[in-house]
């Protein structure tokens, strides 16, 4: 064995795209569950949607979209060998992602405060359609939240790697792939927003 390190950026990128496709199908299954249930319980979904905070939902959308932009800017900065700027953009991505989670936790907290969480005594008194609506709301935004947390952890590692020059002008496919993943997280949220917050 020589010290030669095999690199295959094309393969790595293709692999990431394939993985993203499986993620789409995973959420696709949940979207099918959503549309099926909404078809059965249109009135309850309408009512359930009216209890969600549209303002916070929209603010979160803007926050997440902006974070997608900063990730792209970070990649451009790495391509131009502007390390400080790349780190700044990655840092702001992390900050925006955390903001998203904080806003989300306030929203969830408010729902919990009103007794709207799976298996709660209050929820059990509501019609089945609304129970399903809030079940889907917590499962799907929860799974999305998990993806945000995973994405943030990965981007945190990327920040560390940029700082230590493991990611640099001639070698940034990991950062690109993390960016792709982050865009997926973004795109899924763009679907979740109308499905839940704008359902009313």
């Amino acid at each position, binding site marked *: 064995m020589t010290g030669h390190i095999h690199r295959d950026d094309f393969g790595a990128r293709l692999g990431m795209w394939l993985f993203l496709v499986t993620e789409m199908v995973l959420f696709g*299954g949940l979207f099918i569950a959503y549309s099926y249930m909404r078809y059965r319980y249109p009135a309850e979904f309408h009512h359930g949607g009216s209890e969600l905070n549209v303002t916070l939902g929209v603010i979160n959308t803007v926050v997440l979209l902006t974070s997608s932009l900063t990730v792209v800017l970070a990649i451009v900065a790495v391509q131009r060998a502007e390390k400080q700027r790349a780190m700044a953009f990655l840092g702001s991505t992390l900050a925006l992602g955390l903001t998203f989670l904080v806003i989300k936790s306030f929203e969830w907290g408010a729902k919990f405060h009103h007794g709207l969480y799976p298996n709660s005594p209050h929820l059990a008194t509501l019609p089945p359609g609304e129970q399903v609506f809030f079940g889907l709301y917590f499962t799907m935004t929860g799974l999305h939240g998990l993806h945000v947390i995973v994405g943030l952890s990965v981007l945190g590692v990327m920040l560390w790697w940029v700082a230590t020059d493991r990611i640099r002008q001639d070698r940034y496919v990991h950062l690109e792939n993390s960016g792709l993943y982050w865009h997926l997280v973004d795109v899924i949220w763009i679907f979740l927003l109308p499905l839940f917050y704008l359902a009313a």
Partner: protein
Amino acid sequence: VNAWLARWLYTTNHKDVGILYIIGSMYFGFIGAVLILLVRVQLAIPLCGAGVTTMCWPSATQTFLNPSAFNQAVTLHGLIMILWFLSPLAIGLANYFLPLQIGAADLALPRVNALGYWLWLFGGITATLGFFMPGGNTAGGWTAYAPLSSSGFSPGPGPTLAFAGLIMLATSITVGSVNILLTVAVHRGPGMTWRKIPMFSWFMLFTIIAMLFSFPSLLAALMLLISDRVLGTMFFTASAGGSILWDDLFWFFGHPEVYVVLLPAFGLIAEIFPVFSGRPLAEKNIILICTGAIVIPLSYMVWSHHMFLTGVTLSEGEAFSVATILISLPFDVIVLAFIKTLTKSSIRLTVPMLFCIGSVFLFIIGGITGVFLSSFVLDVVYNNTYFIVGHFHYVMFGGTGFGFFAALLYWFPKMFGKMYSKKAIYASWFPMFVGFNMLYFGMLILGMMGMPRRYYVHLPQFHTMHVVATVGSWLLVLGLLMYFGTLLYAIFKGEKAEDNPWGGVTLEWTIPSPPPQENFEEIPIITHGPYDFESQEAKS
């Protein structure tokens, strides 16, 4: 010992992981077989009464397996055999031989590959641990129909563990399939054009495409199910509609899964038939077009034929009937092409060839009984009887299992550098084949007589056929023990094998047995097709 252990724990080499998959699938296959043998013993003996007074279970509560244990055994037998035996056996063989066949030094993402293996292994262990929980394991059939799988009807931690194991499996399959697809797409050796890719690698590629979009659907369904069980949401229990939602999500995975299990075996047959008939595969391009352009897309469009009894409308039922009959056509073409390959060729009836012919024969029976079931009208009669059990065992165990056994025999000398006793393997084929047909043809007859599946006791009129089936299962097991015993013995005590004992011309036969760590001393440049026997003979 430490170095040995560390090697197997930390390995990312595709051949090592392949061996681990094969050993792991044997372990789970053993568990699955033991479970169903217990079931067969139970079914061979009738309930006392109705004139039967000796050799019978004294009452419905005093049987060999109690009803719950019986249901758990049947359920886990199904899950384990499909997801922890057959599929991983194919993945193990693909791990080992796909990079060799296409001239790659390793899979595209070796660490991801190892991750997939360990997720799969611990998923299986998690699922089987459910047996040791209070209340036992999941018992609602491998399909886990809702609301039977909900905490109301299947309480306790056992079923939750089984479903958690399935989540780990689905994750493992997702990362594993991305890896293999990527390897074929970008890691082929120089000169290995798409047209030169050997058939097993082609069929693994198709298998992966069938996996890639189906397993996430299972994952989504399982997440909703676990959320129901653990968090108390009510996706599948809120109303009658919830169970249909499960059916749709599950069978959107479940039907492509049939091809996930079957297609690798077809690839293996297409690999072995040319070698032992000494001529290229007949109609290779037509087989590839049939599989890639018809079977794979259609496999995602036929899932509702598993749901004819759930109250689908007549027009929906007819549409899925027609689609299902359509998907059987390319398989007719493939089987005919296999037979055409053999016609008027000089067949060498070696042991891999024998098992391959067995596989095609049994698949034909499985396929024809499948066409019965694709009919909306006949399915209403046959669904949930032993007819369907017989049908899918002919496909899954007959078509697929025998194909895999053939492949193990074909590649055994390459993997271990040893040769097994061919006489012992010949001798094992006969009890396997005869026992197989007693067992599963018996089931087809039982189904036509009206015996429903998953019942732990039965009426007297079914007794004779159940005895035939159980005796068949013992013959089958005898054959399996001889088969695996012979191979196990050969690993340690077998004679040294040649590098190319069968005269194959695909790349794996050009390197030493067992292959060196880096596969090829120098990456080969591929100039000839995979079954180009004449030009290769001329060269040597």
